[in-house]
């Protein structure tokens, strides 16, 4: 019993990060019907922003309250990553908005490769893996045979809060309404006075800052390196598709499903089968529900 509770906790930790990144894929797709394949690498950049911010803060003032340091790091990473995503959108995607979708997708892959290799070549980063400084003291609790760490709790709780906040933004605020309007009909929305360019920038900024939350949390538990965005980006992308790409709640559900696949495959099968199970799940789902779990069937408009 403790064994399964332990594995569920592990799955929630992994799934939270996937869900946070999947949100960025799904939001951009929802509004532009474009898959931003650079998103995994934007996530990678966010972990480095968190790394440099936290190192700097702890280097300047070591006696600060860890909560203050954590929140400052989180906000800086979110802001920096949002800025990066907006710049990428303006420079790389906006000129291609009327071009065929495939051009934008290839550009996105190119942007991703650029970010990876830039970070490898950029001297302060380089190819070596690193740990973030300890933002929050890592303490393990043993509750009835199940080991829970403070980092695990922070990852799961902060992710849940951010997802709740995003859901509220999209459903209750003007920006959210504008986003939904564009994703419904991007030709009529501007006629109704929705500032399309600004809302698209907003979407990229929001998606990237959520990825930065994921990045900061991820960096607290794992090592970071310039190529980390590739695998995580793929898994988050599958999460978004499984949940129904374009659907925000779907991306959250998809993220947790993939987290459970990652953790529970090695429980029942040899761990080698993990990627096989994940991709098979994607294939089977695409056959029976091409629009994902929560996605609506798309009607091709003429």
């Amino acid at each position, binding site marked *: 019993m403790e*064994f399964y509770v332990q594995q569920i906790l592990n799955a929630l930790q992994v799934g939270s990060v996937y869900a946070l990144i999947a949100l960025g894929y799904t939001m951009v797709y929802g509004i532009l019907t474009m898959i931003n394949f650079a998103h995994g690498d934007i996530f990678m950049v966010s972990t480095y922003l968190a790394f440099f911010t936290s190192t700097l803060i702890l280097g300047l003032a070591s006696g600060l309250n860890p909560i203050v340091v954590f929140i400052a790091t989180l906000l800086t990473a979110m802001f920096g990553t949002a800025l990066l995503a907006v710049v990428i959108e303006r420079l790389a995607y906006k000129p291609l908005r009327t071009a065929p979708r495939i051009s934008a997708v290839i550009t996105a892959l190119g942007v991703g490769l650029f970010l990876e290799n830039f970070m490898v070549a950029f001297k302060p980063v380089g190819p070596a893996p690193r740990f973030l400084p300890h933002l929050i003291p890592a303490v393990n609790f*043993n509750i009835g045979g199940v*080991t829970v*760490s403070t980092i695990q709790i922070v990852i799961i709780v902060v992710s849940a809060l951010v997802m709740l906040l995003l859901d509220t933004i999209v459903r209750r605020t003007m920006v959210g309404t504008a986003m939904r309007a564009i994703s419904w009909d991007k030709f009529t929305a501007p006629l109704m006075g929705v500032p399309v360019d600004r809302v698209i920038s907003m979407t990229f900024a929001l998606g990237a800052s959520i990825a930065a939350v994921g990045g900061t949390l991820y960096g607290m538990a794992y090592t970071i390196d310039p190529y980390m965005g590739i695998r995580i980006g793929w898994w988050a992308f599958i999460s978004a598709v499984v949940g129904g790409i374009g659907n925000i709640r779907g991306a959250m559900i998809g993220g947790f499903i993939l987290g459970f696949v990652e953790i529970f495959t*090695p*429980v029942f099968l040899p761990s080698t089968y993990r990627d096989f199970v994940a991709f098979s799940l994607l294939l089977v789902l695409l056959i029976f529900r091409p629009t994902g779990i929560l996605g609506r069937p798309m009607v091709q408009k003429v």
Partner: protein
Amino acid sequence: MKRFSLFVLAVMLLSMILAACQPAAPDTLKIGLNAELTGGIPVVGESCKNAAELAAKEVNDAGGLEVGGKKYMIELLIEDNEDKAESAAAATQKLITAGVLAMIGPNASRNAIPSSVVAESSKMVMISPWSTNPKTTIIAETGLPKQYVFRAAFIDDFQGRVAARFAIDQLKTTKPAVLYDVASEYNKGIAEFYKKTMEESGIEVVAFETYTTGDKDFSAQLTNIKQAGADSLFLPNYYSEVPLQVQQARKVGFTGDIVGSDSWGNLELITLCGADCEGLFFTTHYAADIATPKAQAFIKAYEAAYGKTPDDVAALTYDSFGLLFQAIQAAGKIDRQAVRDAVAAITAYEGVTGTMQFRGSGDPIKSAVILQIKGGKFVYFATASP
């Protein structure tokens, strides 16, 4: 027009005469280095490059390498294999085309094995400093030794046995577990030899868990290992991944002993791992604190040049160059086939990492050492002879 061509002719003649009068520039001898400068294990590539440049500089400072009565300056051609199998093979091809006499590297077996196939088919000597997987020097189809591929390190059936014997005799393990990267040749090979030795000693491996290169979350596998009641864990994985595995093992509540292999032997491991790795043991090629006079000279020169203690990759790279230089001198001419025959003719070589004996294959027979991580340093614990 006519006058112009006459002028050109005169200039050409004059320059030819001048060129002939110039003292002959020293000949250079190109040696390739195929290293993991970027990718998953960049510190390995850096150590390899540092040691290679040191070895070449020592020869060049002494006026070059004397081959057949003529001095040659060593020119290193360094290629980055990005720690990827396909890039490693491509880098090997590039070096062959660039006309190197021989190639040192790659280090990780996952890169050395594909490179060795290219070197073998192009009939060029390749010496891998750090690759310990048996497949590097064996032709996959026939099981016979490759003719052009050599290495400076011991092989994994020996290392796996040493690690297993250590876990049985010193750590008194009765329920060993293994977690290894199934997508990487080195990790997979040594994990299997470890398991085999355990089983030959009548001890069952209670959990034999795998992951794939680039994974960062091992909590599922480690929870399985804990659930199986393991009392020791063998992590034959690269230094960049081990700290995460050790920390996550402790996080899921695993309290047993943790043992490693030569892929741990990099100080970066201690930087990343901190207190979590204190007291752990691993098998490797050499110990800086019990160095022979030859090794001490190397350590001193390396520290003077780069400001840090050479790790096992650096020491083995240096030995690979020593082996190659000796063979080139013995060959007496700059010819790939002659150099190959000369390397194969070496039966014993006294290197920084100990005495290597070759018995008809590219694999040296040499001892392993067991080191312990103590106070942020690698400390000598024991020697295991073949």
